[in-house]
């Protein structure tokens, strides 16, 4: 029983970390219809900023998160204007080509300026201590990640379902021309949702750095994982992404506990099984 609880809590933490990083990509793919393989590159950029702020300047973790999110969004603005805007509405494979190109560039540039070593984001002492939760100890930052995941999920749900912006966003997604005719500034909606998605990537990159460490190759190393999680959840669905992250996190974690030798088999077999049963992901919309 203790073991099950223990595995469960690990799975939940890992799933939530995945969720925070992936949900931005789910929004870009589901709502903006852009297969943004450079998503991880933005998370990585945020990680570098946070590492610089927290480790080299010593300004503290909270500052690091805020500056990383803002900094990454600012960096993404010219990219959105000059590159991404050209591929809205293009075929998926053209988008893949462009965003892989961006990823390569970001990796090359990062490697050039910051070198190939791992970058850490020092945690405040409160988060770096193991916490005793009765039946075992767990790192405090894992609890923090879980909380962040829940807050992000709830916040996003509120923004998309309950605010004026959310209504405009959904209208634009369903029928951009119609929304335009109804006076919605679709360009602005796209720009804002792009910024939102990048901001989430940045937040996830920093908060999830304890699971997925920051280094130049980050952008490609975890690309497959992100893509798989988003697709299994159904692009654009918050609930779908939550469930996909929890299910895949649980499969991954229990698989690695029960039969570590075959951990990858479990993970990908689960992906195949889920996709065969839910061909559009858990909560994917019919195209």
């Amino acid at each position, binding site marked *: 029983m203790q073991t099950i609880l223990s595995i469960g809590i690990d799975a939940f933490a890992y799933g939530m970390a995945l969720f925070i990083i992936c949900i931005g990509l789910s929004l870009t793919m589901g709502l903006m219809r852009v297969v943004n393989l450079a998503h991880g590159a933005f998370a990585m950029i945020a990680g570098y900023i946070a590492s610089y702020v927290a480790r080299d300047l010593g300004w503290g973790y909270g500052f690091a998160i805020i500056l990383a999110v803002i900094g990454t969004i600012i960096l993404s603005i010219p990219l959105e204007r000059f590159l991404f805007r050209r591929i809205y509405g293009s075929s998926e494979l053209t988008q893949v080509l462009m965003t892989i190109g961006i990823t390569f560039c970001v990796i090359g540039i990062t490697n050039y300026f910051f070198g190939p070593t791992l970058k850490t984001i020092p945690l405040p002492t409160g988060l770096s201590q193991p916490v005793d939760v009765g039946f075992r100890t767990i790192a405090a930052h894992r609890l923090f990640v879980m909380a962040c995941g829940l807050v992000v999920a709830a916040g996003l749900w509120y923004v998309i379902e309950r605010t004026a912006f959310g209504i405009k966003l959904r209208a634009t997604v369903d029928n951009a021309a119609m929304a335009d005719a109804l006076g919605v500034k679709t360009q602005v909606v796209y720009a804002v949702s792009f910024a939102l998605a990048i901001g989430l990537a940045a937040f996830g990159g920093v908060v999830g750095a304890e699971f997925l460490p920051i280094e130049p190759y980050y952008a490609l190393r975890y690309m497959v994982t992100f893509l798989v999680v988003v697709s299994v959840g159904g692009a654009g669905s918050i609930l779908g992404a939550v469930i996909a992250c929890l299910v895949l996190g649980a499969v991954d974690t229990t698989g690695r506990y029960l039969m570590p*030798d075959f951990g990858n088999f479990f993970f990908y077999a689960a992906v195949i099984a889920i996709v065969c049963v839910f061909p559009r992901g858990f909560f994917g919309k019919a195209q």
Partner: protein
Amino acid sequence: MSSVKKLLCAAVGALIAGSVSASADTVKVGIIGPFSGPFALQGKNFQAGVEAYMALNGKSVKGHDVEVIYRDLPAANPAQSRALAQELIVKDKVQYLGGVYFTPDALAITPLLKQANAPLVIFNAATSAIMTQSPLVVRTSFTTAQTTTPLGKIAVDRGVKKVVTAVSDYGPGVDAENAFKKAFEAAGGKVVEAIRMPLNTNDFSPIMQRVRDSGAEAVFAFLPSGPTTLGFVKAYNETGLKQAGIKFFAPGDLTQESDLPALGDGALGLLTTFHYAVSHDSPENKRFVEAATKAIGGADQLSFPAVGAFDGMHVIYKMIEATDGKQDAQKAVDAVKGLSWTSPRGPVSIDADTRHITENIYLREVVKGPDGKLINKEIETFANQKDPGLASQ
């Protein structure tokens, strides 16, 4: 200055010997390594080792200028490895091949060597079997079995009877598991469970849970240098294994110096065995570290592949010397069989039978150095270790 002097000496000596053609010729050396991509750091260390050696020992041997050509092979890819080697040999006319980080890449080159009449000096690729593929291969790094074997006795000496092994599920990981198991059980210990972890594991908590459930007194781990070691060491600390007194043994790949700043205080006290620590205390190493740091551009990036490359260049220089700049692979390899010298890592020699390096293996503990940075402090020496993987064949 000293390099100029050396050059002069070499030139004078050559003139006296009268064995050098009047025109200064160039001997080319092709270095293949992961200079970009996920293993770029290791490739940079190759380059740093090579440049450090050439900075300290001059860019020519007996009047033959040495020119190094780098070729990038970002990840294990034998087809590309062969293509690069072929191009270096046929087009760039290199006389020596060096570098090679991954085993399959080395295996793709070995069939070419005889026809190419070129020796291959391996700076890293650490599987025993490579040496048997061609008589023209010399290796200046280590094998996983070589660095791991002393740990068996060390663990038993420290009162550990039951161990769980947790290794990355690929060639070197399996080598490490086998080598440790053999040494540990020979010393009277027992491996209660052997876990193989997929290479792309991100979250190691479930593994740690398994270690804890097994009731072992220690965990033996092997992971390739890089990001995953960070997650593993973190998980070891955070899941409370460390507090519970479960010991941690690993070959030194896991605590390579360039990863230590990222591992942070969580790495304190980890025991690893390896052939080289940047903190090794000797005049040779001081000179090496100084030169290599300059070449790589930052002390925190320096790691073990640099010393493999440094000594690899030493071997290549000796080969050039022995063949007097002429292309004769067999003569070059024969000349370095049994060669011994003092490397930055300590006394080493090339085993005449296996052409693999014989070296000291050190037990190290991660501690805070005098300047507060983490180092691998050597606390015990196992002298003149050969590769057990090859010795048994």
